[in-house]
């Protein structure tokens, strides 16, 4: 009888090349999908937003100039690890790499935030949907003939997200240091605050919020525990991270924009297009 809970073995897979929702066993509906709403809007907007950032950041990362306007440093260039960095007056310009590096110093350090965001569980969703159309939207078929997800190289490397998170914490710490240095004036004397200070502060607040709201962070802080009741402090921290984590997508976008804005602000000031309004 066919009424048990065993699936009937269908031999259809080989005989009929039709894929997915057009597989021979499924309801015969010619349309690939029947969604009547504007399902394409979200992936299109996501792709556009990400492309805009990629274009801007590529230009700025390779530019290699106008990234320091004392006391402000662009987040794209901190820490600055090459010999060709400008002097940042006590800032994070540490010559670790040596003088053989001739390219923009941003490229040395951007690997880490880039890797963190590239392997981030939200950005993965965003670009799988927006660029790879896998799937473009729910119940809208993807165009690919085969799919193995994150089971194989290279996408299996997404599992290194946690290690990028550790680096991201270090980078966020350095950017915090940069933001604090924003309270010095151009000569290094404390007791300064300009619009740039605010921009860096807002940026670092969003960077921290994004970094700490990360799913890996949530796991490390408490998610991996079996008994919360035996670790009350970690349980509390897990609760806070979980609250942030619920807004991970919003924070991902907000911090992406804030990084670009912070860099743009420094660029405008450094290139002389704009004078930093000073509050005190």
């Amino acid at each position: 009888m066919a009424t048990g809970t065993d699936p009937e073995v269908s031999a259809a897979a080989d005989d009929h090349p039709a894929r997915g929702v057009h597989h021979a066993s499924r309801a015969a509906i010619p349309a690939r999908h029947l969604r009547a709403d504007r399902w394409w809007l979200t992936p299109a907007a996501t792709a556009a937003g990400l492309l805009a950032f990629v274009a801007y950041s590529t230009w700025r990362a390779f530019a290699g100039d106008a990234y320091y306007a004392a006391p402000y440093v662009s987040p794209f260039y901190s820490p600055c690890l090459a010999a060709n960095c400008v002097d940042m007056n006590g800032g994070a310009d540490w010559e670790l790499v040596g003088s053989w590096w001739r390219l923009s110093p941003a490229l040395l350090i951007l690997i880490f935030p880039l890797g963190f965001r590239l392997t981030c569980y939200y950005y993965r969703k965003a670009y799988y949907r927006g660029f790879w159309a896998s799937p473009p939207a729910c119940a809208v078929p993807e165009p690919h003939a085969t799919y193995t997800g994150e089971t194989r190289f290279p996408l299996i490397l997404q599992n290194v997200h946690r290690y990028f998170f550790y680096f991201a914490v270090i980078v966020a710490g350095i950017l915090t240091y940069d933001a604090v240095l924003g309270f010095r004036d151009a000569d290094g004397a404390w007791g300064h605050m300009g619009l740039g200070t605010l921009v860096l502060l807002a940026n670092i607040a969003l960077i921290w919020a994004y970094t700490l709201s990360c799913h890996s962070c949530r796991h490390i802080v408490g998610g991996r525990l079996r008994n919360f009741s035996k670790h009350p402090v970690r349980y509390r921290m897990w609760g806070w991270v979980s609250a942030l984590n619920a807004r991970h997508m919003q924070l991902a976008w907000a911090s992406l924009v804030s990084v670009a804005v912070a860099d743009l602000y420094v660029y405008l000031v450094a290139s002389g297009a704009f004078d930093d309004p000073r509050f005190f």
Partner: protein
Amino acid sequence: MTRVDRQSWDVVVVGAGGAGLRAAIEAREQGLRCAVICKSLFGKAHTVMAEGGIAASMGNVNHNDNWQVHFRDTMRGGKFLNNWRMAELHAQEAPDRVWELETWGAVFDRTPDGRISQRNFGGHEYPRLAHVGDRTGLELIRTLQQKIVSLQQEDEREYGDYEARLKVFQECTVTRVLKDNRRVSGVFGYERESGRFFVIEAPAVVLATGGIGKSFKVTSNSWEYTGDGHALALLAGARLMNMEFVQFHPTGMVWPPSVKGILVTESVRGDGGVLRNSEGRRFMFDYVPDVFKEKYAESEAEGDRWYTDPDHNRRPPELLPRDEVARAINAEVKAGRGSPHGGVFLDVSTRMPAEMIKRKLPSMHHQFKELADVDITAEPMEVGPTCHYVMGGIEVDPDTAAASGVPGLFAAGEVAGGMHGSNRLGGNSLSDLLVFGRRAGLHAARYAAGFATGAAPAVADADVELAEAEALRPFGAEGGVPGEEEGAPENPYTLHQELQQAMGDLVGIIRRAPEMEEALHRLAGLRARARRAGVEGHRQFNPGWHLALDLRNMLLVSECVARAALERTESRGGHTRDDHPGMDRRWRRVNLVCRLADESAQQAVTDSALGLVRLERCETPPIRPDLMALFEKEELTKYLTDEELTS
């Protein structure tokens, strides 16, 4: 004649709700091969609708609780008509059944010291209901389902086949219990998906099919509740008892029309919700009956204090047993003090902060938001009585769950009678399923094991052919069956609606003799017309055909309800007579028992005085003295006759 698929199993369980699955687990753990048959998909049974909890006197929240108190509450709730032995076994075994669920993976809400949390409910003296938010039934069914899967995994390791010793036949309907002389020999049914017929031969059959609510117009029950098990038992020669007792849950949704009857959990009142009429009055204070006068608050202030200080205050009358609350709501609406859509107001919005409502009553919040556009944190709900549960059912032996008069037939859960007397307490249903589900499975297995050496009752080909012809009848109805009454084919949906209307209007929450006579008359007419119920199309997943077959069961069961209700000239629990408003102690000693008029005959008797069902009065067994001693003499005098008290 088409070839009918035949299989042999040791035990067949009909129904895959809480009782059926518990029975199947037990039979399999006894080492027997067990088949479960259910009308829906595995895991969708009506048990998922249970919200409040499982009553079990674990004493986790109030350590004064024990089985004797639970027993006492159950007897009081049922107005002492309960089979005392069932009530005793139920109260004694319920905690073990709940704890056992934990070892199978159930995750109940917890107390601060890590035990299973228990909540207050109508009619229960102490917080007693083990629960998971307001979705306890889902937890129960899922746990049992997953236990079955784990047993199947064991069998797969041992035999290489998940279904070697425990198989679920989902989306199948049983239309006949087959017999070899007096003894059960198997079941006949059809696959809903394909329409193919099948026979499962088995010496023991457990009926666990649930209730009869779909015979009524306003009900919280799903389409499955067509009284199948009641009718199967009746047709197999078993007897139904206490069928006049139908519980109308006081709070069902009344608007919009498409959701009318859907349950609003009693937890709303248990957690602080109050009932008000259109004048804003908490009318339940006007409806506390004498037997409960000392146990319920007399003022709103006292009732409100009870939620935080239950030791020094009495509970608010909103928490009276369900029958009392349902009658009160009915009376308010009739007196013209109802809400715009014919109910009364149930309000939590002015009683608790919005956040707390969302946390304590998540699925109610969701249900009203999604289905009625009502935000229960900001406005009151409109509620009214809805047919919820039938206390009556198959007469069974309390210890073994064996149906009387039919060797090999067992029954557990809502389909079995006696446990709840004239009115069931909230939370006693889930525990009933587990306690008697296990007992039915155990004793069915023991009975079936007796046939291990062969000589099991045989299924006769002639019986299979008869069952097949009966099931195919709706397809032939169009052309008219030779030698049968004349008339155009009837639409089964129309017949069903007329039945629901008749039962709702005439044998509903408040009953009168002339109306019930009229109901019997209409049932006779419907019976004749149901013979001509015809369907179009083919047998593959044809809902019209399924309904046409279910009509037989609903009509039989409805006749039992109407006949018994007409006979019992008193009001008690789930049976309220406008023309006999008082409870009569002499009636407590009487169980009304239905059996089929002529087991071999299948014709539609259109004479309403005759009908298909015969009614008998049976005396209730006397309560064991040590159990009697659990009550104050004064209380017993309200229920028991003087001679019972002196003897």
